[in-house]
């Protein structure tokens, strides 16, 4: 009999201990760092599978740290939403860890290897912690743990990455401070920091100005961390200049953890009742998301640097998730499209960044215009890129197609037809920039000479994670269409009180 009630805290504690172990083991043997990190993340991933199974069959897991009863002690709560996000971020972290071996040896100075892996493990600790915690202040601390690790890791690339990391630090610190200020307001009126407890105490205080101000502070603070459209300015530089593996992990796992935090606070602490009480909130979120979807795509078209193009594409995709969040209060689908896109975007963007960093690893190709005829030199990496790009465009039955389909259903259901037009327009723009890259890679031929083309792909440890994600883009798409995970989505929606009645 497994003590599954203990697993939520193990996911965080083992990772934290492992970070320290890496630091110590690194003195003896630098090679061991990678293997310890990989073993830990694999173990965390296995734990998260057990957690999901337990949550689905038995119910929500509550763990009281130190045995102190909530609301006095800190509580780790894992319900269907946490378990779902936890499994996604740990899967992506696992693939990123496999990917890290060769790319880190290539990009990072050998002297820094030990601290690099220590910080990498701390980043995973922070991300996993944000997802399992049930305490608002604890979430603040864990957000800072993963952010601080991320600042240092981005800067590890040196050169342009330093300024990118500095900008991220300033923006990120302001964002988290706003979140802290919001918690302060909530604490001053309710006297509790536990999410479940606050959910019970808040409804009587919805008219209180401090509560309303707290909502705005928390919304803006976390929007900075998620890089939602007007607050995204730190994001393109940070994604472009970070070391390969860090780009992969912050664009997938960390971005998803921040969005999870936002969804958790909006729907679990404030609940749907609060949002529907102030009618414009959901509309504002939807409209900002719609602008992000178009703005991100237009800027992506203008880029020549492949990683920067993908970074702007991420802004558009965060828009898709937030559109799902904005529409969720007025449709019977609830949060389903947003939750789908959390998984789908992680798969697609992880694959695309892995491929883009593969090009840099092998041939130092950063500019899209230099990728001419690359498909014949690096066939596997390019194939992974192709599949993920098709998926991003919305080629059926890929994950991108499923998201768009469900978002359209949601917009139809909510009667907000304008967003259907926005989705179509944004898809058209996506076709423009992804087709541009695919055309250069696959169709255009190198002008100079008929020199024999050598097939020289990136190392296997970098190609296979990308290919796994690329194939998953289509397999998961089919699984969504069959509807196997729908009971999980229903469990999440009913847990948050969504998707039942249309007001």
């Amino acid at each position, binding site marked *: 009999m497994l003590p599954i009630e203990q697993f939520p805290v193990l996911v965080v504690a083992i990772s934290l201990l492992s970070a320290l172990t890496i630091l110590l083991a690194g003195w003896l043997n630098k090679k061991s760092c990678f293997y310890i990190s990989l073993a830990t993340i694999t173990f965390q991933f296995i734990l998260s599978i057990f957690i999901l199974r337990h949550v689905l069959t038995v119910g929500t897991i509550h763990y009281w740290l130190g045995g102190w009863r909530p609301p006095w002690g800190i509580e780790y709560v894992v319900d269907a939403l946490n378990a779902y996000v936890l499994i996604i971020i740990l899967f992506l972290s696992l693939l990123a860890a496999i990917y890290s071996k060769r790319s880190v040896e290539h990009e990072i100075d050998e002297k820094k290897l030990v601290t690099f892996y220590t910080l990498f493990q701390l980043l995973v600790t922070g991300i996993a912690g944000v997802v399992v915690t049930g305490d608002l*202040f604890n979430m*603040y*601390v864990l957000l*800072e743990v993963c952010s*601080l690790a991320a*600042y*240092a890791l981005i*800067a590890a690339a*040196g*050169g*342009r990455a*330093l*300024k990118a*990391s*500095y900008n991220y*630090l*300033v923006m990120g*610190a*302001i964002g988290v*401070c706003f979140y*802290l*200020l919001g918690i*302060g307001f909530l*604490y*001053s009126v309710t006297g509790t920091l536990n999410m479940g407890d606050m959910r019970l105490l808040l409804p009587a205080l919805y008219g209180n100005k401090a509560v309303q101000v707290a909502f705005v502070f928390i919304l803006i603070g976390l929007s900075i961390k998620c890089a939602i459209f007007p607050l995204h300015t730190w994001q393109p530089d940070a994604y472009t200049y970070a070391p390969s593996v860090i780009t992969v992990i912050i664009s997938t796992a960390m971005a998803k953890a921040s969005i999870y935090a936002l969804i958790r606070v909006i729907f679990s602490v404030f609940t749907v009742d609060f949002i529907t009480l102030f009618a414009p909130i959901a509309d504002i979120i939807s409209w900002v998301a719609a602008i992000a979807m178009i703005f991100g795509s237009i800027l992506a078209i203008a880029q020549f640097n492949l990683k920067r193009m993908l970074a702007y594409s991420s802004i558009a995709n965060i828009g898709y998730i937030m559109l799902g969040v904005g529409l969720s209060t007025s449709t019977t689908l609830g949060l389903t499209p947003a939750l789908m896109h959390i998984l789908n975007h992680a798969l697609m963007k992880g694959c695309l960044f892995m491929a883009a960093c593969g090009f840099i690893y092998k041939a130092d190709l950063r*500019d899209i215009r230099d990728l001419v005829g690359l498909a014949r030199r690096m066939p596997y990496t390019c194939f992974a890129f192709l599949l993920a790009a098709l998926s991003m465009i919305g080629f059926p039955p890929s994950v991108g197609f499923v998201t768009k389909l469900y978002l359209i259903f949601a917009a139809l259901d909510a009667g907000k037809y304008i967003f259907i037009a926005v989705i179509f327009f944004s898809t058209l723009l996506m076709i423009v920039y992804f087709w541009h890259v695919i055309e250069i890679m696959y169709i255009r031929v190198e002008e100079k000479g008929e020199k024999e083309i050598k097939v020289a792909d990136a190392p296997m440890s970098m190609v296979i994670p990308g290919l796994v994600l690329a194939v998953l883009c289509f397999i998961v798409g089919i699984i969504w269409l069959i509807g196997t995970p729908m009971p999980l989505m229903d469990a999440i929606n009913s847990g948050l009180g969504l998707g039942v009645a249309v007001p």
Partner: protein
Amino acid sequence: MIEWIAQHIVAKYNFWIAIVIMLTGLYATVAKGNLLKKLIGLTIFQTAIFLFYVSLSDVGTLSGLGLHYGTAPIVWEEGIHRGYMYVNPLPHVLMLTGIVVSAATTAVGLALVVRLYEEYGTLEEERIMEKEMEIDKRGT
């Protein structure tokens, strides 16, 4: 009028000071061109939040007069019946964590500033941007 001032400004002066310090810090973070000064602004901003939290914990304020009756929870003064008017200790503890986080952020920020200075030889944001543009031009 005087009553209004007494109730809203004098009695809550620590919150007003927190707001002023917070905005000073935020202004410095946004408006200053020097990276080190931006970081100083950030620290001021964070400190203001600590002040706000610590002010929250003072539950024994007599409104309108600006007098504070709260004591430490373990101190019990004989003869004065105000045992329930102790200062809430939780925000103080939270802010101890907050100070640690703030110190860590500042440390990472300062390390970055040192590396930036080594790389570009200046801390003025505009100069750094110019040099970055030069690097980009040479690259293509």
